């Protein structure tokens, strides 16, 4: 079998780079999308990217604390999703729109 050009096991930096890429995609979605629900999902993507780097550093330091932080992030994300989606429901009931550009009563 020929030797592959990639290392047998991935370096730690690869995991962190993946985390950077996912976080950047989350930021891009947060800034460029106009649907409230998609913006909210981009926030979840950013939280997931941060979770990945927590677990990676937990592996590097051989300590379980990163997993605990990641667990707390999941709990807070669940609570945030419940409240945020309730807010989205209320906004839709009051304005019949999901466009973030049209929900601008606080502007100016």
């Amino acid at each position, binding site marked *: 079998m020929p030797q592959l050009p*990639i*290392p*047998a*096991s*991935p*370096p*730690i930096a*690869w*995991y*962190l*780079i*993946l985390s*950077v*890429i*996912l976080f*950047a*995609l989350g930021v*891009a*979605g947060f800034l*460029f*999308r*106009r*649907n409230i*629900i*998609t913006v909210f*999902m*981009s926030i*979840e*993507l950013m939280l*997931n990217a941060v979770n990945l780097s927590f*677990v*990676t550093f*937990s*592996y*590097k330091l*051989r*300590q*379980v604390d990163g*997993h*605990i932080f*990641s*667990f707390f992030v*999941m*709990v*807070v*994300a*669940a*609570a*945030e*999703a*419940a*409240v945020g*989606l*309730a807010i*989205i*429901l*209320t906004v839709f*009931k009051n304005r019949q729109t*999901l*466009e973030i550009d049209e929900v601008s009563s606080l502007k100016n």
Partner: protein
Amino acid sequence: MDSILFIVFAGIAVLCGLNLVLQKHPISSALSLVGVMGSLAVLYLLLGGEFIAMAQLIVYAGAIMVLFVFVIMLLNAGTEPVSKRRLWVTYGGVPLMAAGIGIGAYVLQRSFPSTESVKLGAFQGGGAYEIGKKLFETYVLPFEITSVLILVAIIGAIVLASKEVN
């Protein structure tokens, strides 16, 4: 072997993340996000976090995404229209993002030597026993405060969702 697993699932995660940002319909974005979360769960397993991987699948890919899909269906959210943006945003956004990722990747590559690699099974401390021991000894106060947070979230969600429109 570990590298191949990492490349496959990291590729799935990045493609699904791109799909999330590029799709026009929210239900496509939601399904892409499920793909990201599932492949991240596999990466957590590679990093030795069995408990976190299962929690990721059950809490994120299960509960939270069902909530999202439920709200998308309930509100009958359709395709979003193409938005008018400023010129520099249209042509400068993607290169700026690529430059940011490139700088981040360079710094990470320089600060973490490539000799240190992630081997499956090298870290055994991510099971339910170790996490439970840590959670109920060192982090018991934050854990209890979390229950209050969830209670507040439940009450807030019920009050917000049941409010009458005047």
